[in-house]
């Protein structure tokens, strides 16, 4: 990447008559370099504080020489031809510096640099489809996250957590508190109705799987392949937002692109860095009571409410059953080595980590190694090789939409079975051990407790857990996933002529994923036939091959106009093979599927290929006004056979207006206006266009026979969705660079949106058909505000606000699509937001009675209309750093189905819901209006009262970081060391009454949104030490 970096600058600062004086000098000296070479050394630090900056790129322009600063901010570049050189120093988040330095033959020159913080620097380099470009040239909003700096003050455990709240418009929702599970990630809202809205992911130029719906069947939560990345290896992350920015990525990029760049080596002595982390997490949820109201069975005189709370204190009546919770302990150990020579640099790393969830059978173990190599075999060739291999093993608990889960067992438990000791209301016998149901039955029926079983009532259950599933029973079920993954890429940059650049990247990403679920052989367990042993395994192998390359030519068209033409091609192939087997009823002992009494197997595979070409033409006027039209043409194996190639155009422009002579001074240090319009696409699922039949196994004349039946009609006219976006924005620096502003307005429309249109069942086709019949529109604003409140040698205080609004509406959809809980809690419907909640609405009428609408009405939607974060960092004496990050979101609703289900279980008000809310009484002893509404809704099995506003703010991070004093570091022989203590998810502010406003029982799924017996995120304290030698 470093070499590409230099290449890009070479294009921008070319040797030409139109260049500046410094460049003329560079060209002149560059041609006379036949003497003994010189050396350049120095340090790079921050202004005012003087803190050394590591990993800063220091490069000699036009000569292909460069270095990265070490942990102490020092750098060294050898073999520099004598003469005047131009040195450029740049790193994300700071204004780059360029300085002319004289190198004398055989001597060492010293140049120290002091960088000024500048979050919106116009000359920052951005990774694009056509290589590195300066921000000033790009018409789209760009966000680059410097992962290393973020990781210094926060302790995210996954890539999605790292992204959460860091970039405006990137919406990350944490689906649960279960370690190892997926979060959903979207950029600029829901750009598709029927397809996944997860952005494409590239690592060092290789497109990788962005699967977020893998893992064993555990009730709803899924695992994400984005979690396979080792965060310590990430150098930076580029967020490519919206169709106009993603045009050159073609079909599939309409939901945006995330480009991850990993760390590279640096010229100089080897540098070791060790990192060790220890963390603890705990559940702090306010678990609701489970209530039994005997009046529901025995009439209003039986008015004693019985309560139990197995998750909070593990008790029910006089029974003590214990809670399932534990303190989850996380440990990780990592080491990296970086260094190199002028011709070769390397970065090697390894990490071992183990995380524990707060439930006993939840945890993950990760091992990863990475080797990145940069070669500079000749002056005009650079090669960058990236390789990583990792293994992830997760163990997941049952929860969410399964009756076999911890939370279901306790929150849907039967309080009428709670053990109590009472005096017999009929005989007067004292101290009888019974249960709430028998005692109340005895009172109501005036029958001795001992006679109750003879009335036909079942005996008191041994435990009050749902289905008798104790926490120990649930813990005995094993759900595992083991993933081994290789991701690699090779990028070759070749500059055959000064005006011509060629670049090609071969990327390959392969993972094998083995999931397994095992119910142990133990007839005493409460899982029915599964207690005789059940095992299911699933083996997925996914191979993703990406090939891309471009050719770029740059010319002066005149003394003020510069042209860059890029022609590129991209090929992507993904193939996924799945094989599974299920075995039921095991003898005690061996538990391979093959040892089961009943077995079955399955196999499938999917393949998809895309080929695309693009042409981009950039015109630059005086290096401040840029106009860039482009076009991309794609063909895909998933397109319908009746469809030809798909064309995506784009045009963008950027204008650094502050560099005009007439621009008034005093307000803006820099100001850039930008505009982009463009299209990109999203392709159908691999088999959507095909008419399919399915095997129908048939028993015929006492034998098994194979038949076929119709499954789906297919759609030969199926085409990709087309997202069109207009984006306007500006960014600037004010107050002498102490304030940075980045503002964007966008409006995007997805036409031909693919909708899985259900067919009338009378058609005979059970499956839906993918059809281009929808349209969805998103509009919003994004703001990133950076401020340096105070800057002095002993104190620096800065803050950052990211905020984004998003208003999405389905603007065309002939018939609503029902889905979600009971296939009716949510709808995609024209005129409404994506995934709108629907239910009959219950209100208290004038006469005090509960009235309900005849038909379901719109009750809200699950996608936040605004969200963002506020973070602040205070650095004292260059040694102590305090950091806080508060995330927020609002303007949306969440379906509290946990309470809806508990209030409605066994007929709700009629049969005895177990939620507290339906028994609420006002001061007059009568049910509250809310309770009456909930009773009515529970009886009707409707959702309205439980669709609640879900605005929230969460203190995501609070951390303290201490740089170890130099003397101590030197005594260890190290160059830098730090210790950090961070708290994650320490506080939640919300009026939502459910377990958590962010969770989703459907895991990484993006359309279904429901809080149903889902484990909320745990609180976490982490500490880590990092030391560099």
């Amino acid at each position, binding site marked *: 990447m470093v070499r590409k970096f230099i290449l890009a600058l070479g294009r921008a600062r070319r040797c030409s008559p139109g260049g500046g004086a410094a460049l003329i000098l560079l060209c002149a000296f560059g041609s006379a370099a036949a003497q003994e070479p010189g050396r350049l050394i120095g340090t790079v630090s921050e202004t005012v504080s003087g803190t050394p900056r590591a990993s800063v790129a220091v490069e000699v322009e036009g000569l292909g020489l460069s270095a990265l600063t070490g942990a102490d901010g020092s750098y060294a570049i050898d073999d520099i031809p004598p003469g005047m050189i131009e040195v450029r120093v740049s790193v994300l988040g700071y204004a780059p510096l360029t300085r002319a330095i004289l190198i004398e033959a055989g001597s060492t020159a010293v140049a120290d640099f002091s960088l000024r913080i500048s979050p919106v620097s116009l000359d920052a380099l951005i990774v694009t489809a056509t290589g590195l470009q300066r921000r000033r040239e790009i018409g789209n909003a760009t966000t680059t996250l410097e992962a290393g700096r973020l990781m210094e003050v926060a302790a995210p455990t996954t890539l999605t957590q790292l992204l959460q709240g860091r970039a405006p418009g990137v919406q990350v929702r944490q689906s649960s508190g279960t370690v190892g599970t997926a979060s959903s990630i979207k950029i600029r809202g829901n750009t598709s109705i029927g397809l996944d809205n997860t952005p494409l992911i590239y690592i060092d130029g290789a497109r990788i799987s962005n699967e977020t719906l893998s893992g064993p069947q555990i009730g709803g939560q899924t695992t994400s392949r984005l979690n396979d990345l080792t965060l310590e290896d990430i150098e930076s992350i580029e967020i490519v937002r919206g169709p106009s920015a993603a045009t050159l990525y073609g079909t599939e990029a309409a939901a945006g692109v995330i480009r991850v760049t990993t760390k590279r080596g640096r010229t100089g002595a080897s540098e070791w860095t060790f990192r060790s982390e220890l963390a603890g997490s705990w559940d702090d949820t306010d678990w609701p009571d489970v209530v039994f109201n005997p009046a529901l069975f025995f009439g209003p005189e039986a008015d004693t409410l019985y309560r139990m709370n197995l998750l909070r204190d593990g008790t029910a009546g006089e029974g003590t059953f214990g809670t399932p919770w534990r303190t989850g302990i996380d440990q990780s150990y990592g080491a990296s080595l970086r260094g190199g020579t002028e011709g070769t640099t390397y970065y090697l790393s390894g990490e071992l980590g183990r995380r524990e969830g707060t439930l006993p059978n939840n945890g993950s173990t990760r091992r990863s190694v990475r080797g990145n190599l940069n070669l500079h075999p000749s002056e005009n060739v650079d090669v960058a090789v990236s390789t990583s291999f990792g293994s992830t093993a997760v163990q997941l608990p049952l929860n969410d939409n399964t009756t076999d889960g911890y939370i279901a067992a306790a929150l849907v438990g039967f309080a009428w079975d709670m053990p109590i000791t009472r005096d017999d209301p009929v005989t007067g016998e004292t101290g009888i051990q019974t249960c709430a149901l028998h005692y109340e039955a005895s009172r109501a029926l005036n029958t001795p407790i001992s006679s109750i079983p003879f009335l036909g009532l079942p005996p008191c259950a041994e435990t009050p857990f749902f289905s008798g599933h104790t926490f120990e029973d649930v813990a005995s079920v094993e759900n595992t996933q083991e993933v081994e993954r290789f991701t690699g890429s090779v990028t070759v940059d070749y500059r055959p002529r000064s005006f011509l650049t060629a670049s090609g990247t071969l990327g390959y990403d392969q993972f094998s994923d083995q999931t397994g679920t095992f119910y142990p052989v133990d007839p005493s367990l409460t899982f029915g036939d599964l207690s005789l042993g059940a095992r299911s395994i699933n083996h997925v192998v996914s191979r993703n091959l990406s090939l891309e390359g471009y050719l770029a030519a740059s010319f002066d068209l005149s003394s003020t106009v510069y042209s860059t033409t890029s022609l590129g091609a991209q090929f992507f192939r993904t193939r996924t093979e799945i094989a599974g087997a299920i075995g039921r009823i095991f003898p005690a002992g061996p538990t391979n599927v093959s040892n089961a009494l009943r077995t079955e197997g399955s196999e499938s595979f999917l393949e998809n290929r895309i080929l695309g070409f693009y042409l981009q033409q950039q015109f630059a006027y005086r290096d401040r006004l840029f106009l860039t039209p482009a076009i991309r043409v794609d063909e895909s194996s998933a397109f319908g056979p009746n469809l030809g190639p798909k064309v995506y155009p784009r045009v963008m422009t950027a204008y650094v207006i502050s560099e005009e002579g007439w621009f008034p001074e005093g307000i803006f240090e820099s100001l850039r206006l930008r505009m982009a319009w463009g299209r990109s696409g999203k392709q159908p699922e691999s088999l959507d266009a095909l008419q399919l039949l399915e095997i129908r196994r*048939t028993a015929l004349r006492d034998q098994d026979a194979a038949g076929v039946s119709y499954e789906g009609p297919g759609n030969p006219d199926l085409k990709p969705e087309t997202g069109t976006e207009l984006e306007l924005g500006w960014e600037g620096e004010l107050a002498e660079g102490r304030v940075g502003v980045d503002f964007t307005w966008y409006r995007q429309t997805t036409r031909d949106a693919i909708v899985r249109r259900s067919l009338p069942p009378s058609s005979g086709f059970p499956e839906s058909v993918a059809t281009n019949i929808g349209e969805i529109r998103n509009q919003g604003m994004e703001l990133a505000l950076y401020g340096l409140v105070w800057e002095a040698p002993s104190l620096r205080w800065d803050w950052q606000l990211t905020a984004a609004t998003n208003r999405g509406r389905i603007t065309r959809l002939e018939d609503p699509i029902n889905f979600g809980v009971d296939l009716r809690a949510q709808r995609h419907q024209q005129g409404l937001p994506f995934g709108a909640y629907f239910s009959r609405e219950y209100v208290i009428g004038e006469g005090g009675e509960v009235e309900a609408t005849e038909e379901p009405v719109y009750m809200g939607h699950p996608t936040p209309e605004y969200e963002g974060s506020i973070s602040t960092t205070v650095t004292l004496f260059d040694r102590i750093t305090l950091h806080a990050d508060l995330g927020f979101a609002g303007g949306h609703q969440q379906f509290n189905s946990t309470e809806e289900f508990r209030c409605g279980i066994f007929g709700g008000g009629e049969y005895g819901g177990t939620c507290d809310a339906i028994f609420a009484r006002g001061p007059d002893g009568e049910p509250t209006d809310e309770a009456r509404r909930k009773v009515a809704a529970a009886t009707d099995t409707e959702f309205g009262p439980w669709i609640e506003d879900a605005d929230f703010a969460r203190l995501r991070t609070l951390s303290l970081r201490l740089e170890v004093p130099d003397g101590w570091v030197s005594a260890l022989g190290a160059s830098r060391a730090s210790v950090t203590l961070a708290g994650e998810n320490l506080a939640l502010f919300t009026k939502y009454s459910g377990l958590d406003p962010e969770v989703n029982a459907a895991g990484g799924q993006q359309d279904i949104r429901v809080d149903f017996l889902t484990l909320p995120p745990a609180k976490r304290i982490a500490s880590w030490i990092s030391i560099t030698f």
Partner: protein
Amino acid sequence: MMCVTLVACEGILDVDTSGEIVPDNLDDAGPAAIPTLVNGMIGTFNTAADEVARYAGLLTDELILAGTFPDRLQVDRRRVLVSNASVTDDLYTPIHAARFQADTAVVLFQARLEDPVFSEVAEALAEGIALGRLYGGYTRIWLAELFCWSILSGVFPETVPSLPNPRMEEALVFLEEAEALAEAAELPEVRRAAIVGQARALLWLGRYGEAAMRAGQVPRSFAFRAEFSNTNPDQYNRVYAFTWGDTEGIRWTIGDGTSPARGNERWEHLNEFRELNLLRIRPPGFTSVAGTSVPVVLQLLHNRAESELVVASGIEARLIRAEAHVRAGETTAAQELLNDLRGDFSARVSARWGVVIPTPEFALDPLSLTGDLAVDLKRVADERARELWLTGDRLTTARRLRLDPAVSIDLFPPFKAGGGDDVAFPIVLKELQNNPNLGLSQACPAGQEPGAWH
């Protein structure tokens, strides 16, 4: 230029779809594909027959709910919403899939009858056509018997829903055609099944004499069965699977009236069935997914994954004749038919289900009819309840007798708290939303609403 390049590179986009079955595969197979299509039609029909037995049983308390899911609870409480996912996916859709598969196969097979390429499979084509018509007839019978009204799309599209009687008339036409085709193709079992189906349709239509006449053509020992297999859960008898908890949790059971949370539903014939050893009361080791509060009573008719489901039989034909005799005032003839069945009932079920023959005190004794139409029809219905238990007949019989103004016998279970008085299923929401010929208010004929589907 880029487009031209794309076209030139088209081979690079070829993907392997050999794991999927597409129509080309059948075309390529030619005559060899015919048995596969016939088998697919049979399998689809068998699945639908199975689901009919489950849901008809749930609406009439042959089964009660032992699971937690509200949508099936709606059926148990006889207050079915049009959005009910279980009714949509497990009942409505399989019936239409079986009908569509049968109707489509007949069209495909007829088109190939004259094709010399298919001459080698002429017999299979003929069998397929006869079976297709038979299944087309029976699926239409189900639509008439189970639903307040129904609509078709696909091979025989309709623009308005059809009430049960016209749908039954249509079924009759299909079954008469099936009888003729089966006779020509020398398929006696298919022919007899078609005749029993005709008798069943005629009974519904109140043409009792014709029904008896047709039923009289079928020998007592005849049985046309939907077969299942224990090889793969896809082929399991699903009544078995969902009441025995083999591959699924136990979600249905026979109500024994001991569950307070469930409203104490009790199957009307519980004692009689228990005394005949047709039930096992609360065996140890069997719990429903809702836990021990819903006791599980095992039914022994569908007691294995491969248990067959009788779709049409000589026994049913005799019961049809008995009812026709009762309605004609021929009490003695009806009584003889019924007592003939009662006489060897235990021996038959013992042979077929493997149950222990009851002790003499619980054996079935001959019955005496009274000459009172309503009383005797109820008695015939009781015989049907036992002989045709859990085959989907209960809802038909109960609905037919309740809708019959001459007797108005109500065999449906009493109202349950929070429930309704549905005696039929509606056209489901998925159909209403996606069929351009229907509006959302057309789930049932005007005047009916959830809780009052008739």
